[in-house]
């Protein structure tokens, strides 16, 4: 404990010495216990002084150093590096701010500033006397990443990680990959179809040795933490053998007597219990929907690939990081919301997109030809009364694009857009001007006065008080009413809950900091990407997926992680385990453990972030934060009090 200390007091070229009498400070502290060297210097951060400090430390075997200069924000790390060059432990270095917090703050009172500087330096000396050498907490990190969700974001992240040489397990809950994009036809900006985009990604990833794709797979438990997550996955079988005869299977599908609504087409069509995911089907073979299958055996009779003996599997993987790409749900309007489920001419935007894709030459819906289409915007988004206050971002562009595609594909279509103000941000604006040029009609409702859908003489009418014509009531007869539904967070948030991912006010997963750390979560080692974090278009989803891939890669690339050693420490003798600390910890870093005959609290070193929230709640004062222990704080108070 008897340290040999070096103390350096900086003039900062007058910034300090003009107001603080640095010589007086030196004289006041040079006889403090442990101080071996006390010096003043014109510029502590200057090269010459740094060299001198390194020599001082080496020649005199100093094991504690204090520099009194500017804010530690500027030079704490500079001097930590200096002490390391002198072969001293950098945590035995204490920085004192006598510029921003003394000379400058009290430039009106030189004597006061000097007095304060003396006490600040003394308190730093008191602290460094008690400081202990610390070493980064090193944990090994499995060089593998689990990507949850095989939509475009998840697939793209998996490919990028694979490019970086990192093994990936890509986990998809559905039996087919591609997520939402697989359901879309022609996409905005590239004019590719969703199918093409998904095909390209699937073909790229499926032959890569370092990507394992699991479909029909759900994460059921997770243990461990950054560097070493132990993820258990339940994989449900397809009940179809991988190598199968297409012709026989088609006949088997025809033979299946069960019909259920087809999710892929947002329930506007039906499918069998044994089904293809047409047209974007990857992996390219069907599935038996075991929940709806009655085991009648018709398919088995026709096709030898059907295999009801396949069993559910539990797979356990160990990864250093988890990348979330679980996507979104489309808002489902309430019954009667703009006539939804009340009038059969009212559908949602995703349904509409499937209808355009499925129709050819003539646009018909429920047997009737469609010519006049009304689009009602912001359904389920920007709600005045409902919970979804946010704007869903992608829908204005998406619906305008769909409306243009409809006109291109079918003759005699008239589009009416009932909007709440068009938000085709950025270059998407061009699409909006194209749409206007093509003769689409735009109307806009007042915020609190949405359009009304009603039925008159067998016709569907949509009424609006239109801002753009000075509030005139306008009524349009519609063959089809498309509710432009927004993105909502996944209703089924089992994975999120399992991983304890926090959600924001909008109920999407929340990042640590929108600007500084947009893909990281408070759970170390877990990153988020794509629309599970908030509404995004494809490009934005992919950008965030690639950002998350880099971040996840950085957790695992070196095979090792070094964590800051400033963490909480339990005094085993004092702890009586009441659980208050575990409750106060925002990171779940504290658990109970057996020590000889009693329960005590145990800190998980790789999870603790050193915030100290557990300290004040301990009824027996059994927790201290390293570098901020009672001894250290109290000795600093002693010094500042001048006792």
């Amino acid at each position: 404990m008897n340290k040999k200390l070096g103390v350096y007091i900086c003039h900062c070229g007058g910034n300090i010495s003009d107001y603080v009498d640095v010589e007086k400070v030196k004289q006041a502290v040079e006889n403090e216990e442990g101080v071996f060297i006390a010096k003043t210097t014109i510029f502590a951060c200057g090269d010459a002084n740094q060299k001198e400090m390194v020599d001082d430390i080496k020649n005199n075997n100093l094991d504690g150093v204090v520099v009194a200069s500017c804010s530690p924000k500027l030079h704490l790390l500079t001097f930590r590096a200096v002490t390391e060059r002198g072969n001293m432990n950098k945590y035995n270095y204490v920085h004192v701010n006598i510029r921003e917090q003394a000379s400058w703050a009290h430039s009106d009172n030189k004597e006061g500033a000097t007095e304060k500087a003396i006490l600040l330096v003394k308190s730093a000396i008191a602290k460094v006397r008690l400081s202990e050498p610390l070493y980064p907490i090193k944990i090994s990190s499995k060089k593998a990443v689990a990507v949850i969700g095989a939509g475009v974001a998840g697939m793209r992240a998996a490919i990028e990680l694979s490019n970086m040489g990192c093994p990936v397990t890509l986990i998809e809950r559905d039996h087919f990959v591609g997520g939402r994009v697989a359901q879309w036809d022609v996409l905005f900006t590239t004019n590719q179809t969703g199918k093409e985009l998904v095909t390209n990604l699937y073909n790229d990833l499926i032959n890569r040795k370092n990507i394992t794709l699991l479909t029909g797979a759900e994460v059921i438990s997770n243990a461990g933490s950054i560097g070493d997550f132990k993820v258990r996955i339940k994989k449900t079988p397809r009940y179809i053998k991988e190598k199968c005869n297409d012709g026989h299977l088609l006949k088997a599908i025809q033979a299946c007597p069960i019909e259920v609504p087809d999710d892929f087409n947002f329930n506007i069509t039906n499918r069998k219990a044994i089904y293809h995911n047409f047209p974007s089907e990857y992996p390219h073979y069907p599935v038996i929907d075991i929940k709806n299958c009655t085991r009648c055996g018709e398919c088995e009779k026709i096709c030898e690939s059907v295999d009801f003996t396949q069993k559910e599997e539990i797979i356990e993987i160990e990864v250093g990081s988890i990348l979330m790409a679980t996507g979104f749900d489309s808002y489902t309007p309430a019954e009667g919301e703009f006539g939804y489920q009340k009038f059969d001419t009212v559908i949602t935007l995703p349904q509409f997109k499937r209808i355009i894709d499925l129709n050819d030459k003539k646009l018909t819906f429920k047997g009737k030809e469609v010519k006049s289409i009304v689009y009602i915007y912001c359904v389920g988004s920007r709600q005045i009364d409902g919970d979804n206050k946010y704007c869903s971002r992608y829908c204005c562009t998406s619906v305008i694009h769909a409306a243009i595609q409809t006109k291109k594909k079918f003759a005699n279509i008239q589009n009416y857009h009932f909007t709440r103000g068009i938000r085709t941000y950025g270059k998407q604006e061009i699409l909006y001007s194209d749409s206007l040029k093509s003769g689409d009609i735009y109307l806009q409702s007042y915020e609190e006065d949405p359009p009304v859908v009603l039925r008159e003489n067998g016709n569907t009418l949509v009424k609006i008080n239109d801002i753009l014509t000075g509030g005139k009531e306008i009524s349009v007869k519609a063959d089809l009413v498309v509710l432009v539904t927004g993105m909502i967070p996944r209703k089924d948030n089992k994975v999120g809950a399992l991983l304890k991912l926090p959600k924001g006010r909008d109920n999407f997963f929340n990042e640590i900091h929108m600007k500084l750390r947009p893909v990281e979560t408070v759970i170390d080692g877990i990153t988020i990407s794509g629309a599970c974090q908030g509404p995004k278009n494809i490009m934005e989803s992919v950008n965030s997926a690639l950002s998350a891939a880099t971040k996840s890669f950085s957790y695992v690339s070196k095979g090792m992680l070094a964590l800051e050693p400033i963490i909480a420490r339990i005094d085993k003798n004092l702890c009586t385990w009441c659980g208050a600390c575990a409750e106060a910890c925002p990171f779940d870093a504290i658990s109970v453990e057996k020590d000889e005959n009693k329960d005590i609290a145990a800190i998980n070193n790789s999870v603790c972030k050193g915030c100290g929230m557990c300290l004040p709640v301990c009824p027996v004062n059994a927790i201290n934060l390293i570098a901020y222990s009672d001894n250290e704080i109290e000795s600093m108070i002693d010094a500042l009090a001048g006792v």
Partner: protein
Amino acid sequence: MSSEKINTSFDALVIGGGIAGGESALNLANNGFRVLIIEKDLSIGGKMILLSKVFPSLDCSACITTPKVSEISRHPGITIFTNSKVKSIIKKSKNDFEAEIIKYPRYVITEDCTGCQLCEEACPVIIPDQYQYNLVGRKAAYIPFSIASPRVAAIDIENCTLCGACEKVCPTNCIDFTQETEEYLIKAKTVVVATGFNLFDPIKIPRFGFGSYKNVLTSMQMERQLAPTRPFNTILRPGDAKVPDNLAYVLCTGSRDVTIGNPICSQICCMYSIKQAQLLMGALPMADVTIYYINIRSFGKGFEEFYSQAKGMGVDFIKGKIGKITEKENGNLILRYEDINENKVKESEHDMVILSVGVLPNPDNATLFHGEELKLDPFSFVNQTEPLASPSRTSIEGVFAAGTATGPMDIPDSILSAGSASSEAISYLIKKP
């Protein structure tokens, strides 16, 4: 100019030291690659470091930029050239780019300057401060702004009268008028283009009177007035130093306007204007703020809620197109506009008008690369060859675009785009040719 070229090589060359370039450089360097950032300004941090607070979180821009900026400048894997320009980049072959860089003299030895500002005090010259968008003056020997990185003085040689006062007072003798322009020949395996954007200059719309009416400001000038490193102690009209109490915002100035050649939406102006309106209501509690808009585009995470908050605070939103601005004798401004809700032309008086200027491409992008062409899109932003599957890819293999180089975007999108570009650059570097 020294005739000798200095040769060095790096893994990645990042052009632009704003937040997109900085984020890309950090990602690359944290994965063990050696990066060179070329910044044309005297300080890194781009436009973000000069902003007041950022939407929708209202955290202080400087406070979140400065730690990032110091992380970049301290990183052992990152070399930064400030006050430097790319003369040309030529792709020789895969993984082999050759860049000619010109480094202009600062006339100050960066390593020796302590940022004490004594030179600044001594300098007798006053000229408009570009970092305060000309609202106030600066010296010819100056530190760009208090949180600049590096926080090192520079001599503005064009405006310097060579009186020698700065040199006499410098305690570390770091002022050096013998410095010369240097030329470097740099080899790199991949290039990230993070050249950022330019702001629309409203002088191009004469009917708004910017330039001649002194109380018509750009939104960037207002941004500076609201920032912690602001030019005045309070919000003032530049025309007569009056504390304004009735301010108007004109959205879409230089955006969505084919007559000035920019048909696209700038994506950020609605939100920064709403943010400034909220900050103004905090700074000037008695003031009225009116925002004239075509559509409010509050589309991002938390944006719509932020817009509602502004309405709740009493910011007046008028859906209207501004025809013409005229100035009264007392410096107040008359806005003639078409009120769309009421379908008629109206006039209103404000004592200060802020033009919410849009985002334009950086013209440098056209001349960076010689030989193989870096293709631009119809709006002159860097063209994205695969906007959906690989948004940062450009027409040259191995060159990736980050941030507003490819189009208007806000800070979170820029950071994500930078993450995307650096991710592809890392893959490109790891995959053996």
